[in-house]
Every structure is written in structure tokens, then in C-alpha cells.
């Protein structure tokens, strides 16, 4: 089984104080720590587990700049067999459809029984790249998988749907599945593991290699254009308590009492 897993490097913003950069269209990246997009980590693990069970190869693909190679190395360390780095200045500023277009060109020419992507990315967060890619490839897709098994030419997918329910569906391969967090327990990647794959060559492909008209991707080709980023007004609703821990907790208890919590 030929499995392709599409991954992305994103900043970890969970506890970071974010600032808008001077252009007004990006965030200050100086103090941020980058790593694998959380959802994609589950996708890589799923790909590697399926390969271990059924044989075949896993190819990890990312669209990004030089620094983004790090997530491909990480995927190789987790057990991916090959990696492909789609890198070109013309790709910069792509919207979700642009990214899907680039991935489509790279994937359509190689065997793909199963394509996995993270369901969402921690930066742009559109949740739409996977579905768009599937439509472009002309293959079946299911979004937000929480369980995934493959039996010969058929995938069984449990995925999140309406009203807090999950639905189990079967679909014929080739197919694309977008992966939710919690699908598995992604294996730990040690520094030694990364070192082991440091010698592996990672091919790079640009717009010309993929036969992509640069005008259809990147900022030029983007249909959705970011005009401005801003930090939403903070604490609009919340009364942020002040003082030392004792004072804050006392006031909190007062508020809980006022609202019938004690």
C-alpha cells in the first residue's frame, strides 16, 4: 500500500504571547518555537502503523521553506520511507486552495492508495486543504477521522459528525482521510532517531518540476487574501481578578456564591 502523508511545520502558540509584525499581515516569529502540526503528528503515526501492518511505503510531503525540512526529517525518524519537499518562492503566501493545488500536482503522478492529512493546522486552521486535495485528485474523502483501519482495497473510518456523534463508514481506496487528534499515540521521536535519518536525501521539487503555473499558486494565485491581522480585544467578557493568590481566590469564591455555586 502506497501511503502519502501531508504535513506542515507550524509555530507552537499554545502559551505564546503573539504580536503582529510590521507588515500587519503576519505574526512576529522571532520568539516562537516551531514543530510538527499537532494533527499531522497523528497522521504520520497512522501512516506508519498501517505500513507496519500491511506493508508498502509511506511518503511524507510538505510545502514550505528551507526550515520546514525539519518536519520531514521527523516523519522519516517516525518510520516514513521517503520524504518530498515542495519548495519554491512562488509557493509563498498560498491559500488553502493553492496548497492543495501544489500537493495535487506532486501526488497525482505517483501511486497513492491512501492520502492522510491532519484535519486542521494550528496556524491557518481552515481545515479545508485535505478535502480540496481529494476533490482535485478525484478520490473519495472523509474528514475528521478518529479511527482508521484498512482491509485490502477498503478503508473503514470512524469520523466526527453532528451532535457529538461519530459515524463509521467504509470507502474504497484510493481515498483521502483527514485525521483528528487522539487517533493513536504518536511515537516519541528522540534526537538519536532524528540523527539516524540525517543522511537521508530529501528531494526538493519546485513549480517548474511539478508543471505548476506560478501565477496559480502563492500570493498571486490566492483567492483568499489576508488584508490585516489583529489581536482580538482581550478579556472583553471576563473580570480579570487582581491581587495575590489569596485575594484572587477569595474574590472568585464570592463570585461563585453570587451565582449559586456554593
Amino acid at each position, binding site marked *: 500500500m502506497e501511503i502519502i502523508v501531508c504535513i506542515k511545520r507550524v509555530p507552537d502558540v499554545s502559551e505564546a504571547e503573539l504580536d503582529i509584525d510590521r507588515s500587519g499581515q503576519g505574526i512576529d516569529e522571532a520568539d516562537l518555537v516551531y514543530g510538527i502540526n499537532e494533527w499531522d503528528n497523528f497522521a504520520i503515526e497512522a501512516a506508519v502503523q498501517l505500513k507496519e501492518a500491511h506493508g508498502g511505503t509511506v511518503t511524507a510531503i510538505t510545502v514550505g521553506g528551507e526550515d520546514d525540512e525539519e518536519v520531514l526529517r521527523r516523519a522519516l525518524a517516525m518510520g516514513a520511507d521517503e520524504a518530498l519537499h515542495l519548495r519554491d518562492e512562488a509557493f509563498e503566501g498560498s491559500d488553502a486552495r493553492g496548497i492543495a493545488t501544489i500537493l495535487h500536482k506532486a501526488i497525482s503522478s505517483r501511486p497513492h492508495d491512501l492520502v492522510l492529512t491532519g484535519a486542521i493546522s*494550528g496556524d491557518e486552521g481552515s481545515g479545508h486543504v485535505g478535502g480540496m486535495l*481529494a476533490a482535485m485528485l478525484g478520490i473519495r474523502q472523509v474528514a475528521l477521522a478518529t479511527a482508521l483501519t484498512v482491509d485490502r482495497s477498503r478503508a473503514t473510518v470512524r469520523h466526527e459528525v453532528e451532535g457529538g456523534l461519530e459515524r463509521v463508514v467504509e470507502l474504497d481506496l484510493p481515498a483521502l482521510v483527514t485525521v483528528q487528534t487522539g487517533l493513536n499515540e504518536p511515537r516519541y521521536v528522540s534526537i538519536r532517531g532524528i540523527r539516524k535519518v540525517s543522511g537521508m536525501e530529501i528531494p526538493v521539487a519546485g513549480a517548474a518540476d511539478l508543471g505548476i503555473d506560478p501565477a496559480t499558486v502563492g500570493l498571486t494565485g490566492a483567492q483568499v487574501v489576508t488584508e490585516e491581522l489583529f489581536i*482580538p480585544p482581550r478579556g472583553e467578557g471576563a473580570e480579570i481578578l487582581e491581587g495575590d493568590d489569596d485575594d484572587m481566590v477569595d474574590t472568585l469564591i464570592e463570585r461563585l456564591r453570587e451565582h449559586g455555586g456554593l
Partner: protein
Amino acid sequence: MSERNLLVLVELVGGEPDDSAYELASEARKLAGGGTVAAALIGSGVGEAAQTLTAWFDRIHVYDDPQLAQPDGEAAAELLTTLVERDRPWATLVPHTNNGMDAAPVLAVKTGCPLVADCLSLEAADDGLKAVRTVYGGKVHARVSVRDAGQGLMATVRPGSCTTAEAPGAGGEIVTETVPADLVPHRRFVETIAPEAGAVDLTQAEILVAVGRGIEEEENLEIVQSLAEALGAEVACSRPVVDKNWLPKNHQVGTSGVTVKPKIYIAVGISGSFQHMGGLKGGGFIAAINKDPAAPIFNVADVGIVGDLFDIVPLLEEKVRELKG
């Protein structure tokens, strides 16, 4: 151009239109500027739902077929592609729900419509649409624009972000659409899984202490459980805690978990993603404890403590126990 025709994809939950249908109807009405606001309703045995929608939409395109008993994003995309290509609405609005995320990107590629995802607000512009959406886990908002190249536009809209107006009493016309006989051979439905009922029913709880990623380690859950015990509350959680198998799925509050409506909700180490907050209804009192002052939870909470939960939670428990004697 001031009159615009819009199309809304209605999400059904348990056979009834989801709240998002009315939110999108209201938002579409604002954008339409006197134009037509139509709905697409897809399911099996949806006559009653269609009737309900006549108060909100000028036209309801009904796809009613046993093949459509289980919502299926690909089937929805296929049906809507025909509809969008036939009627070419100025914009198609889809709720940014799990099912919406399943259908919208496929529909956008099939129709060639530009798609902007997960919008908080929409505004018509001369040459297209302007929207505000969140990026970086809700910590940053982006003003984006989409230009209409002639095919019409698409947006998915976050549930709960638009206000539902009064039903305009539109007296909508129900249009029965044909469903191709071989529409859904792609996905074969196996079963629907509801979260297993737990020992406690969180939906009936008056007070919930909810714990998130900030708890760091499984053994730290103890401080939260012990606070809940002191308060006579139940313990709930956000997704990361379930992903790590520290608590069962039926404790997860959110759009992919349980919907709760407590009088008091104490969020401990929860950042407050919209997927989590989407499971919290009923307008109860929300207290948040988080060390990150920029956590989105502080935008929706009533009272907040920016601090270390490992200091605050045990102190709160101690004081609650003192008070209760």
C-alpha cells in the same frame, strides 16, 4: 449590485435544523440586501424540517431520499454542485461544523468557487466578500477578502458567531429536487456511535469543573477531582485530556463531545477553543483559571484568574472546604 442571492446549507441534528441554520439565515438576509435567501436541505424524511425552514428562507431546495439518511459530506457536495452551477448564488454559506468541513472543500473545488473558512463575520464588498476569521488557535484574528471571479463565493461560518434575528416569516417555497438514484455508492454507512453513557450525566450537572491541557500530567487530575468533590461538582474536560486517555470521551465538553448547560463552569487550564466552547450552552457563569493571559477563554469567561493552576486550584479547594465547614 445591491441585491444578492444566497444559498445556505442546512445542517440537521437529530432530524431538526441545527441552530446554525437560523444563524446563517439571518446572516444571509443581511448580506442579501433584498435578494433571495435559499436553503438546501438534505436528508431522509425531512418534510417537517422543511416546513420549519419556510419561516426563514424564501426557497428551500429539498433533497429527500432514503439514500441520504446518513449525512455524508461527499453526497452533499455532489448535490450542491448541481444546485450552485444551476442557480449561481452570489454566495453559498455552510456552517463550519464537522459535516460542513466534510462537504465545503469538495464543493468549492467542484464548483470553482473561492472558499473562505471558519468566518466569524461576513461583509459584502463591491468585488466580493470580506470576512473576519481566526488564526493561530484563536489568538489572532484576520481580516480577509475574497474576490468574486464570476462563479460565486463560498464561506463556512463558525456556529454561534452570528446572531439569530427574528424569523422574517418568509413564507418560503418548498422546491423538491431530484436525487440521482446512484448518488451515494462512495461511502458505505456502517454505524453511528454515540458516546457511552458514563456513571454521571454531565448534561444534568449544575456545577462543572473542567480540566484541559494545562493539567500537564495524568496524576495531576487529582487536584481537579478533589476541587470538584469539595464543590459538589462533576469533572469535565476538553479534548486533549481525552486524546491522552486520561478521562473517558463522555467527559469531553465540545462540538465533538457532550453539550452541557451548568449554572457554574470552572475551566482549569483550558485555552477555550471554539470547538470546546461550542459544547457549553445555557449562559451559565464561567470562571477561568489559566496561566496564559492571552488564552481565548478569557474572552468568553465571566471571571478569570491569570495564574498557576497548581497553586490556585488547591487553594480554592481549601477555602471552599473551610467555608462549607
